[in-house]
């Protein structure tokens, strides 16, 4: 079973599975609702943005079987567009975020059409190379302001009502965005479309022989994942009032892979747990400079060698054993 740990196990008891997912969702939402009273809100907002980013990434690898090593391009491009829209065009934050999401969706269509022409390892290399192309474009394009990035982006008023300059209002706005994205991903996974995706991941020739245009399904999954990653990036740019090269760099693409791997590839809640784990770690190790990179790399190695199911994968396996035993 560990052989293909990133593939979620077929559930033997869909009713119990759905009950577990509902309960876990309620617990998660309860924690997020009270979190800003306990923890510094900016920290949780950052983690929520990355959690959505990781969930979007996981949609592609966990349920489509496609490992993208270039997801930073969607996070970063959407961040630039939404920051530019909010600052230079003076658009309200929700419209700026939608503009960023739309931009990353378009980018997803363009890159997806190229990337899905190859599979497996080639797919990872192609997405990485395309993301590097986007990185160099971001370095050179005038509107991104190169090394400086787009700074002092106004947060503005969401829907003309909620003043996002207050950290608490901003927090619940981010939470609402995250929840909408999370539920959309949940819905996609459990829809007939999601089932076809799983079928393609398990056995593509067979899915083709059943009459599915697998290319189209893969492209759709790629575009959805890109758009949702963009939603995370656009929101992040408004929260931190900054869009910079960090978010388009390849190390960011690696970071989201790490978050998802740590939390559990192909699990529903794993990416959220992984994002919080990595962001917390980053918080403590940030001042140590390159030690953070070393730690990240070491976690990669350990996870691949000994912990392929990730935190939630192990937890779910344990719950399942207990239910059977």
């Amino acid at each position, binding site marked *: 079973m560990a052989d293909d740990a990133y593939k979620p196990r077929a559930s033997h008891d869909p009713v119990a599975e759905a009950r577990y997912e509902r309960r876990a969702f309620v617990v998660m939402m309860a924690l997020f609702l009270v979190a800003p009273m306990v923890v510094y809100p900016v920290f949780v907002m950052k983690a929520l943005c990355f959690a959505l980013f990781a969930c979007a990434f996981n949609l592609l690898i966990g349920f489509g079987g496609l490992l993208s*090593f270039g997801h930073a391009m969607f996070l970063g491009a959407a961040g630039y567009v939404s920051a530019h829209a909010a600052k230079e065009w003076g658009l309200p934050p929700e419209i700026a975020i939608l503009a960023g999401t739309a931009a990353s969706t378009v980018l997803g269509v363009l890159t997806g059409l190229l990337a899905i*022409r190859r599979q497996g390892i080639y797919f*990872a290399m*192609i997405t990485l190379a395309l993301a*590097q*192309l986007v990185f160099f474009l971001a370095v050179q394009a005038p509107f991104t302001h190169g090394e400086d990035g787009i700074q002092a982006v106004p947060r503005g008023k969401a829907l003309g009502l909620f003043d996002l300059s207050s950290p608490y209002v901003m927090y619940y706005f981010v939470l609402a965005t995250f929840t909408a994205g999370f539920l959309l991903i949940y819905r996609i996974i459990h829809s007939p479309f999601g089932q076809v995706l799983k079928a393609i991941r398990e056995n593509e020739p067979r899915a083709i022989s059943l009459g599915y245009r697998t290319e189209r399904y893969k492209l759709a999954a790629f575009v959805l994942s890109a758009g949702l990653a963009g939603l995370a990036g656009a929101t992040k740019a408004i929260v931190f009032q900054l869009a910079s090269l960090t978010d388009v760099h390849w190390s960011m693409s690696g970071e989201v892979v790490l978050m998802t791997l740590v939390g559990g590839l192909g699990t529903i809640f794993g990416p959220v747990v992984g994002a919080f784990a990595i962001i917390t770690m980053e918080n403590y190790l940030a001042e140590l400079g*390159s030690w953070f990179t070393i730690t990240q790399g070491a976690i990669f190695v350990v996870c*691949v060698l000994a912990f392929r199911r990730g935190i939630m994968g192990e937890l779910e396996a344990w719950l399942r054993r207990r239910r059977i035993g």
Partner: protein
Amino acid sequence: MGEIFGVPTQVLFGQLLIGLINGSFYAMLSLGLAVIFGLLNIINFTHGAQYMMGAFAAYFLLNKLGLNYWWSLALAPIAVGATGVVVERLMLSRLYKLDHLYGLLLTFGLALVIQGVFRNEFGSTGLPYPMPSQLAGAKNLGFMFLPNYRAWVIVASLLVCTATWFVIERTKLGAYLRAATENPAMVQAFGVNVPRMITLTYGFGVALAGFAGVMAAPIYQVNPLMGADIIIVVFAVVVIGGMGSIMGAILTGFGLGVVEGLTKVFYPEATNTVIFVIMGIVLLIRPQGLFGSR
């Protein structure tokens, strides 16, 4: 002084030369990746870090042991290749039964660790490595000055690439290797120690990266991050060429280096991006790569 398409020939040939130099490194690195991929079915993300380790090995050999460039050229690849053997034995060998993507993730993590450790020790400014005295100076070819070291890099890279091609395509050892790529279980049944062959192949691919690192040390500075960006370009080169053929990897490497050099002359803004754009076009027209087979 003549001009071609409004560009002074001196500039044109200068950039062509730089393109050929870069192409030499693309060729050596993508060759190593192709050799490793052929037998292990993994993409070695650590390749860039191992290239950097080759340059550092040359630096240490010179400054700690007083061994010059020529010694480094022989010893550094062996040292770096030995670390590759250790990595393969301890880690990669545990992953062969899994999805190939895990190999990519593991080697990516290793690259982060290695680059982080070197940056911790040596900062990110880069250390100088002197040109070997035998190759200092330049030749006047009439239309341009050709620095001797750069000519040497191109010649040495061609030699190494051709030798690798010869060993794999024309010798008995290479025949074993190609057979093991096709069907490892069958080759094992004939009494060939396939696991050891895999280990040595990985070590050889890594040693090639180390060799490229030594060659790069006098041109570029010895820098902990020197392999981080080049490896992504080399991935694009590999996608363009397709990993099916050894000669394909070599030709694509040199060819794209030249294209990059020419881009610098005619449209400098696109120098960093041209290889990725070519990759996109190749994917549209011939997804399996120029020399790849389905």
